[in-house]
């Protein structure tokens, strides 16, 4: 290839990448500028691409109602509680499927667990509501969503942990037995440290799903417990949607997962590639 041609290809490639970046980043850009606009400016027929007057006070106004902050706390409790439960159950079940496939019900049971994740959740929205309504803690509680999200997160955790455990050589555990460790001590000494990066990435996937969930939260909770996802649509004034406050609040809600991801990205990448490259 001649030098001129090479430059042209490189230029076209970069142009394409730039266009792609523009498309993917535009919603994010729009969210940020909208969060700083006044309510009147957001409702113009001809939109502005840069706020005429900056309104950083929007970020304070969203907490004018004190319970809005509680919604973030509720979301955090539900996401974290669900993640811990998913991880605990998924790790135990994944270990059983990986190490004792026959006793644990075999490949078919493992696949059935995963297939729960593929089921369209909308189909069971109403039965779920009545089911949780019949429980002592009712629908409008942290516990109801923590348990409900297990339907989605536990299969994912089980399946991924199973794969991670399978990739951990059984001989390492056997070596630990011969060193004098009981199976439980061997698990904590050898197996768990080896799947830890995987566990962290599973935890992140579960946490982000539970943090972002809207449909079931909207149906089940709303009075005693509110998640931030069902608070966002409440920023209205009469029939007018307060886009600026909605965007400001969702920007705030984006921070925890982003920070989490930045802190744990090292494990995330290692965990997701755990099954890909051996050794």
């Amino acid at each position, binding site marked *: 290839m001649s030098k001129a041609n090479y430059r042209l290809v490189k230029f076209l490639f970069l142009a394409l990448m730039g266009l792609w970046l523009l498309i993917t980043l535009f919603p994010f850009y729009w969210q940020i500028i909208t969060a700083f606009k006044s309510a009147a400016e957001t409702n113009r027929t001809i939109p502005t691409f840069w706020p005429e007057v900056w309104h950083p006070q929007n970020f304070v106004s969203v907490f004018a109602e004190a319970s809005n902050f509680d919604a973030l706390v509720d979301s955090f409790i539900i996401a974290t509680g669900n993640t811990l439960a998913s991880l605990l159950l998924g790790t135990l079940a994944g270990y059983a499927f990986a190490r004792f496939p026959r006793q644990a019900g075999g490949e078919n049971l493992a696949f059935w667990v995963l297939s729960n994740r593929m089921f369209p959740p909308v189909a069971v929205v109403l039965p779920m509501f009545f089911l949780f309504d019949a429980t002592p803690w009712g629908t409008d509680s942290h516990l109801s969503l923590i348990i409900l999200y297990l339907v989605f997160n536990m299969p994912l955790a089980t399946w991924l942990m199973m794969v991670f455990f399978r990739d951990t050589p059984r001989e390492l555990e*056997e070596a*630990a037995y011969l060193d004098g460790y009981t199976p439980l001590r061997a698990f904590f000494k050898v197996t768990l440290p080896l799947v830890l990066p995987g566990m962290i990435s599973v935890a992140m996937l579960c946490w982000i799903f539970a943090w972002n969930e809207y449909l079931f939260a909207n149906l089940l909770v709303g009075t005693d417990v509110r998640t931030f996802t069902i608070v966002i649509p409440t920023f209205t004034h009469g029939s007018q949607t307060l886009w600026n406050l909605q965007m400001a609040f969702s920007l705030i809600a984006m921070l925890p997962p982003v920070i989490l991801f930045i802190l744990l990205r090292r494990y995330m990448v290692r965990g997701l590639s755990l099954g890909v490259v051996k050794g």
Partner: protein
Amino acid sequence: MSRLEIEGLCKGWDFPVIDRLDLTVEEGEFFVIVGPSGIGKTTLLRLVAGLERPDAGRIKVGGRDLTDLPPYRRKVAMTFESYALYPHLTVFENIASPLRARRLPKSRITETVVSVAQLLRIEQLLSRRPGEISGGQKQRTALGRTLVAQPDVFLLDEPISHLDAKIRHELRLQFHTLEELRKVATLYVTHDYAEALSLGDRIGVMGAGGLLQVGTAREIFQQPQHLFVAQHLGQPSINVVPAALSSVDGALQFAAEGAELKLPVAEPHGQALAGRSSERITVGIRPQHVKVIRDGEVTTDTTGGAAVVDATVAIYEALGANGILVAETGGVRLTALTAPDAVFQHGEAVRLALRNDAFLYFDAASGRNVMVA
């Protein structure tokens, strides 16, 4: 104290792997099990270690029955063919693992690990992880982990098979000098006959189902009880000639099946084979008992009634320390060991002096050595 006794051990999955195996390894004895891959050597070690449950039979150490004990209560240490080092722990922690399992005080652990590391010459690697050291160093680390455990029985599964030749020899010599291994019963598994002959106080040759022969290196090599044993030991491997015995004028001879080669049976074997004239028999001829004589060369050494036959060179490999020659005589291909400086051409006519007093005779059907009653 730590005598290992295995009685009537059976283990199988879809087919029997170990069938009524009996074996006693004395305290301080270095017992080597040699056999081809997939024959059940590792299974035997895993049964002794408690990683597999036997279908029948008992395993005892120092009179104590271990059969129903889990591996972590057996005081048995094992090195794995794959080394099975903990990848997330340093070399130090890998070696310290059995001591940590017993919750020994920190100072004791450090002291023991460092002294074992010095013994194995890996003390400079203690802070590295298994991923950062070479195969030979991994092997030493795995060995260190078993040594610190001070077990009643050592189980070593192909510990040096996957290393390159130079390090393999170096470590083989080290096994000779490791005092710890000589204090208790050691069961060492390998597929390499040279390792077995070099290291074993006694050697067990494993064939399908169990041990075909147990004995010292000399016994196993010179008096193999079974054709399988003779075939498995020795490099290049023994020449196997299916033949038919016949008596000509009162002298016993054998004729190679489907070929013209006929050789007299030497004096020491005549008596044992006398009752078998006109029977089919398998003759084993070790390559070192086939001497190649060049055309025109004077036959100076015909030690003990060697039979001399004409042959043609088929393949010659010069290997530095010696040469391996495959020659055809009367429709039979025989392998011979030659002097290192010899050069042979393909198709060259040579003569072979066969030490027929050192031939081995095996029953054609059972494969048993007919000379060993």
